[in-house]
């Protein structure tokens, strides 16, 4: 299949090999057909935004990238999700390695009710890191990457639940970075934050996109427009349009896309 990077909308200008290529992805929750023939590419070290009205399947697509849907009973998937050219729905996929490479931050900040340090060290520990020195290095590196280090370096042993929501969300990002993934999935990471915190997390996402491939689900059109390079618009389980963000927001091909981004439904 040479034509794997064909888009239903305009292909992004750069013809890079995609980090993630979704091909004819179908997903059922029991008998409910939640994703229908979705094809979408995610470019490496770019931010890809998934937009669309509530219930259109954005989170579901996102959760196929690290196979978190496997945890839900009655989910059935057909089609392919290629990450670095390997279909992760192949039988031989090592889920632990996959999830180490493809990490996720969630809608609500959800640090564990333990100390800041232990939160960040959690991932490395489950992957077998026991050396204290190495753990300390990783914690510092990960906290620096989310600009938390200066604030928290003297409070590493305080409970994570005492932090502000923004700090908690940053901490969750640090916890994720500590396992050294290369794809970051963010499912409405700012929806529990105030506008100022949101702006700062957006800045952080842009900063991180220099090193990581980022997919972000958002309900916030401005957010998608501000930070993403590529935008994909979903409706009722289908990918309606995908293209460079500037094109989607100024010159959408699909009538429905236009209606959605101009706020006429959703």
């Amino acid at each position: 299949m040479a034509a794997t990077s064909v888009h239903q909308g305009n292909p992004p200008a750069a013809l890079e090999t995609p980090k993630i290529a979704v091909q004819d992805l179908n997903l059922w929750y029991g008998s409910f057909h939640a994703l229908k023939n979705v094809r979408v590419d995610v470019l490496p070290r770019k931010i890809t935004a998934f937009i669309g009205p509530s219930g259109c399947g954005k989170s579901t697509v996102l959760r196929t990238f690290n196979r978190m849907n496997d945890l839900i009973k009655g989910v059935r998937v057909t089609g392919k999700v290629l990450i670095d050219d390997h279909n992760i729905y192949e039988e031989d996929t090592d889920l632990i390695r996959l999830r180490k490479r493809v990490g996720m931050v969630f809608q609500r900040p959800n640090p564990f009710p333990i100390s800041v340090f232990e939160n960040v060290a959690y991932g490395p520990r489950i992957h077998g890191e026991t050396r204290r020195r190495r753990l300390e290095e990783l914690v510092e590196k990960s906290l620096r990457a989310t600009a938390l280090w200066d604030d928290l370096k003297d409070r590493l042993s305080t409970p994570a639940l005492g932090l502000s929501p923004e700090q908690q969300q940053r901490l969750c990002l640090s916890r994720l970075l500590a396992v050294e993934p290369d794809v970051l999935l963010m499912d409405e990471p700012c929806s529990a934050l105030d506008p100022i915190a949101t702006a700062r997390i957006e800045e952080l996402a842009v900063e991180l996109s220099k090193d990581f491939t980022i997919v972000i689900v958002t309900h916030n059109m401005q957010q998608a427009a501000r930070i993403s390079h590529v935008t994909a618009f979903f409706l009722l389980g289908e990918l309606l349009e995908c293209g460079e963000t500037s094109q989607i927001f100024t010159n959408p091909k699909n009538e429905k896309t236009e209606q959605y981004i101009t706020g006429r439904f959703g």
Partner: protein
Amino acid sequence: MNRRWIDLFSRLFTLLTALACFSLVAGVALILGDVVLNGLKHLSWEFVSTAPKTGMTEGGIFPALFGTVFLVLLMTVAVVPLGVSTAIYLQEYAPAGSRWVKLIRMAIQNLAGVPAIVFGLFGLGFFVDFVGKGIDRFFFDGALTFGQPAILWASLTLALLTLPTVVVATEETLRVVPRSHREVAYSLGATRWQMVRRVVLPQAVNGILTGTILAVSRGAGEVAPILFTGAAYYLPYLPTHLNQQFMVLNYHVYVMATQSPDVDATLPLLYSTVLVLLMLTFALNFAAIIIRSRLRRRLKAGR
């Protein structure tokens, strides 16, 4: 009925319910007052640290106290791992809502409803006669070693009795560990066991502890299950092996109350023994309540 009657009736009803409540409180206060006032008279260090003498009309309760602690410790060692693993299996591993799980839950609930004396008989039939005698036959050439009432069998019987307490309390706390924490653990690449071990269990410690204390306090109070499985009327020595019989506080109370050669001489000792037993149980229950309320507060703060 006109208004006045309704009014009168409602007042009468208020009075009746208040009276019911009052009589309950008064009853408890009377019993407690009686035990405390009379029990304190004879309570001393010597009383809790010496053995009964001259047919329980003199001396103390040390062997019974020792036996109770030993028994309950053994029971805890048996019931906590079993109960906690059962709860973990039911909550974390077993497919949710399956028939199999429902059956196990039902079995556990029914276990909680079985009268204690039935556990005693079961313990005698199963542990003493079947397991114990079996061990004797295979390992001791039939010489009577484990095939008799003993502290091991009594504690296992109690463990069975208190199993539902531990399972239910543990399941309850496992259930309140937020789903999102499990998801995070998986999304970081944790296996199920790593998720349980490092995310769920640390947050469930309090609940497990509460369950354990409640089980211990129940275990320290029940006589029926140990009656045929190991409790002794009087022993001139302390149990040092698992296959020995033992004295225990609650049974000692019963023995003192019914078998004493001199009722009047035993009575003060009896009061003090009951007081010690009550204090032990209250202290344990109180600890459980404190831990539980702390847990609740922490959960609220965490939401």
